[in-house]
Every structure is written in C-alpha cells, then in structure tokens.
C-alpha cells in the first residue's frame, strides 16, 4: 500500500512539474476526449446493426440460455421431467425461433412461478438478447422462423383485395379461433385454471407466431393447416375489430351475456328501483298551517 502510494505520489509529482508546460492544455483536451469517447462507447445503447455473425449470436444465446432457461429446459434444451414424469420444461428442439420470440418477447418466459399457465408480463430480455436466444434455440433443430412484416401486413394489397382479405379473415377467425378466444378476441376460460388470452391489442407478429407455434395448450395452425395468406387475413380482421367503433354501444369487455346480464340486472334494474322508491316516498311536510285564501 505504501509502495503504491509512493509511486502514485511520484507520478503525480512529475505531472505536476509539467502542468504549466506549453503542451499541457492540449494534453488535457486529448485526455478528456479519449475519456468521454471511451465512456460513450461503453455505455451507449448497442445498435442492432452491429451485425454479429450467426455463430456469435448462437454462442451469445447459449450463454443467456444456460443462465436463464436451462434450469427448466435442460442444458441443451432437451427438456426436464421429474422422477414421477411431470414436465418441468418441455424440450425446445424443433420449436424454432418463432416460439422463442413469442414466449420471451411477450414476457411469458421466463415464468415467474410454476402455474397453470404462463402469464403475459413485461419482457425480461431486450430485443438483442431475445434475438440471440432465438438464434440459439433455432440451432437446436429446424422449426418455424420469426415472421417478417411482409408475412402479416396487408399494406401491399389494393383496396379491394384488402376488403376481401378482411372478410375471409373474419370467417376463418370465427371458425377456428372464437371457440377459445371469444368472438371479439376477448379471451376465455379453459379447463384446470387455464385461459385463452385476450388477443385484441396484441402485436401482429406475436399473433402470427402463436398460430405458427401453438404456445401453452393452444393448437398449432402451421402453414399446412392455415396458409400464410390465411393467417395474414385473420390478423387483418383482428385489426379491423380494434378500429371499428363500438356501434352497438358499450361492449362491456365483449364478454357476451355474462357481463351484459350483470349490467342489466344491477345497473338497469337498480336505477328503476331507485325511481320507484322516489315516486312512492313521502314528500317533505311543513309544520305551518295552510292559510285559506
């Protein structure tokens, strides 16, 4: 310690001797620039364009995976079962990048606690980390890749084609999705504590990925089942549900007869009972005598 002090003091003494030299100002300026530049480089938000090679992505994803996912999904994504056969985490071989992007991007994974179903919550990883994780899991076995905006956008279509897509999407939605997700996409209950989540207000990419990969207990709607165009149409229809004003008045959550019946019985009949009480109530009485004119 004393040695360190002595050497620092000696160095400081030497610098001190030159502090009024002709080049001191320039040196301070250069040092300052170097210092701030290094600091900026260390703390600046990383750019997505910092194209790391695929191998780097996979290696980085594996690091993240071993820390955050391997406890349940196994060190090589092979899945873990308990001794009595319960699944802790399913195997991730062949689920593809789309499943990772959906599960981690919507915050469902990592799960905060074991339960009937993973909840949607703010994501625990940033976009770059999710991409790395997706790249690693995709490298375990072939699976669906992350869809691009071209897959689910109808912007490239003419007005007539768009209308056609929305109508067809609506029919496909009503046939395939409403059983669990409700006719307005409000979601619904499923057996043993599960539920089909609300799908209004969900990013198109995640809807597409959910159809592609079948998260949790959902059936998959692979490209052989619903073609990419049909998936795009369903997403276009869901977009119009959100844009269309509630023409029938208050939707009450779009939950159907339960919420509507509750509203009618409590609020509607409650108001009527209130009026009935008012009509039949005694009016205020005065103690004064009426003066007959």
């Amino acid at each position, binding site marked *: 310690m004393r040695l360190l002090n002595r050497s620092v003091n000696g160095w400081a003494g030497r610098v001190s001797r030159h502090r009024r030299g002709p080049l001191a100002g320039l040196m301070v300026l250069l040092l300052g620039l170097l210092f701030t530049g290094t600091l900026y480089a260390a703390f600046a938000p990383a750019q997505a364009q910092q194209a790391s090679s695929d191998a780097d992505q996979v290696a980085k994803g594996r690091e993240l995976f071993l820390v955050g996912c391997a406890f349940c999904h196994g060190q090589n994504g092979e899945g873990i079962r308990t001794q009595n056969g319960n699944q802790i985490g399913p195997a991730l071989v062949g689920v593809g990048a789309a499943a990772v992007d959906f599960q981690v991007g919507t915050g469902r994974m990592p799960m905060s606690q074991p339960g009937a179903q993973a909840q949607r919550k703010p994501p625990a990883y940033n976009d770059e980390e999710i991409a790395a994780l997706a790249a690693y899991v995709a490298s375990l076995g072939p699976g669906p890749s992350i869809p691009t905006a071209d897959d689910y956008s109808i912007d490239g279509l003419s007005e007539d084609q768009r209308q056609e897509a929305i109508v067809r999407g609506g029919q496909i939605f009503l046939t*395939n999705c409403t059983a*669990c997700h409700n006719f307005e996409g409000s979601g619904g209950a499923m057996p043993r504590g599960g539920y089909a989540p609300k799908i209004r207000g969900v990013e198109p990419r995640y809807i597409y990925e959910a159809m592609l990969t079948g998260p949790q207990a959902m059936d*998959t709607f692979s490209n052989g089942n619903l073609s990419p165009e049909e998936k795009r149409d369903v997403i276009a229809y869901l977009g119009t549900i959100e844009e269309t004003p509630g023409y029938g008045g208050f939707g009450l959550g779009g939950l159907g007869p339960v919420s509507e019946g509750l509203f009618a019985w409590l609020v509607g009949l409650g108001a009527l009972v209130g009026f009935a009480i008012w009509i039949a109530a005694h009016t205020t009485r005065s103690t004064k005598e009426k003066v007959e004119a």
Partner: protein
Amino acid sequence: MSTELPPGHDHVPAVPDEPIANPGLPAHTWRPTDVDPRAEKRAERQVAALFLLSMVCAVLFLVSYFVFQIGDNPDSFAGLGASNVALGGTLGLALLLIGVGIIQWARKLMGDHELVEMRHPAASPEEDRVATLAALGAGLEESGIARRPLVRNTLFGAMGILLAPAVVMLRDLGPLPGDKLLHTVWTKGMRVVRDVVGTPIKLSDLEIGDLVNAEPEIIFATNSQGEPEYEGVDLQIAKSKAAVVLLRMDPDDIIPGKGRENWSVDGIVCYSKICTHVGCPISLNERTTHHLLCPCHQSTFDLADSGKVIFGPAGRHLPQLPLAVDAEGYLVAQSDFTEPVGPSFWERDSKDIGEQGEGS
C-alpha cells in the same frame, strides 16, 4: 255476549262501547309548496325546467340525426358509434325528463288530499246474489236446454268435432324426420376439406399439434351446371351435421378403441364437432391433453381415447369419423359416421364404444 254466566260471576263490570276513545286520523300536515308561495313558485319552475330540458333533448336528437355519419365511415365518439350514442342518449333523456317532470309536478304541486277507503266485505250483498241466480235459472229454463236433448246433444257434438281440424293441422309441424338423424353427407372416399376455404388436406400438410375445423368436400362442390350441390337450408343442415374437427397428435398418445384400430392415419383423428349433450359446436381443444371442451356446459371429451366423456353432462362419446388417405395423398373418410351425430333422441340405439365398430 253470553248471558249464562257461572254462579259467582254475575257482577262483571260494564264494558263501555269504546274502551279507548277513537283518536281519529292525525291532522293533515301541508307540504312546503302548499303553505309557502315562494316554494310553490320554485317547484313550478323546476317542473317547467325539466320539460324545457326534454324539448332541448328532442331538438338535439333531430340535430344528431342529420349531423352524424353512419354507414361505411361512421363518426365515432369515445370508441362508440357517435350516431347511435347521440340518438339513443337524447331520445332517452327527452322521454325520461318528461316522466321526471310529471312525477315532480304530482309530488310538489298537484292536490294533496288524503283519501281513506274503509274496508268492507268483498262479496256482493245477499239480495244481489239471489237476484242473479234467479235470472240465471230463468234463462236456462227459457232456453229449454234441459227439455230439448236433441238440440243440446247436437251442440255438444258440433263443439267436440271442432277438435279434429285442430289435431289434423298439427300434421303441418311434420313430416317426421325419418332416418335423417342417422346419417350425414359423409360417404366413403369423400375428401376432408378445410372449413370456409374448402381446400383439401394432404397428410403431409399437418404437423403434430395441428387442429383443423373441417367439412366434407361436397359442401363446397358444384354440379355439372356449375351450381352448388347444396344451397340454402339444405346447405346449413348438411354443414351443421357433418362438421368435424381434425387433429394430428403423437400416434403413441392414441388409445385405439375396439374395432377402431385403423380409423386414424399417422396420428390424425377426426371427430364430429357437434356435442352429444345438446348439440353445441365444440372446438376448444387443449393440445397438451387432447381434451375437447364444450363451452356450453363444460362436457369434456378425450380425443386420444375414442372421444370418451371424461367430464360434464354429455351422455355419449363423440362420434369418430374413420379416416383414410386417397391415391393423391389427401385425407378422405372411410365411410359416414357409424352412429348418429349430435344429441340423443328417443329412437336412437344405446350402443357404446366397442359394440359399434367399423361397418356395424
């Protein structure tokens, strides 16, 4: 009052007719509006203001009828259709304010008399009842219904036979369904196609975990003149009875029923979509358990195990459609359902799984 009092009790104190003086009705108290001219004026203005507000609402109704756009590009207000909200709100308020004004008028300003209606027996006076019965008896006597049995009996006959037209008209509720409940439009070799789009399904299209809501090909087929095979009501009936769900699961998960060993193709199974309880369409499937849940009454069917009921009020397993693959690799039906689809009915047999294998 009895006059035969026992000995020793002959000196009962005299009871006055009214032991406690009748206090009569309490004195009437007046409302502030009856005794205070300023309160009266105020109430008058309140009622008039309510009626005026109603007029304003009615005018606003007319304005919003013309102002707000409906149709393809409707105006919206707080996420609701502006036209509907404005029309309903203003018309409702206009009517409500008239009602509120009238109630306020009656409570504050209209006459404030207290009326007492004393109770009395509900029956008519004795003389009225005697007179009525006498008139009835005289009428019966004069009509001669007892003396002229021919007239009386033919009248009863005429009224009785009027039942026959009523009963015969019930026939129009028919015809009886015959064997329509026993069959659907599925036949041997008919392709299974996706609902809505009508495209046939190749075995290789489906991955494990896929669920397809499907229909028979004939629903979308056209005849030689280019017209649909089924239209209108016939189409709806055919569609509703023949709707199926198609699932691909791990072939090892399937527990084949007796006589159903070759009804699935590489883990692809096909079941009627119509619940056997009261006929709701069901496709709430859990991929992980292969349990199909009916949203109406929570009947649950195990699609890996011949569609057996594992929960809920359904009394029968879900009918399974035997599947095969045609020469081009598309999924086809081996036959129609081997049992009636949908809810139970009287004429139905009660065979269970294992007793009604393929072709029975």
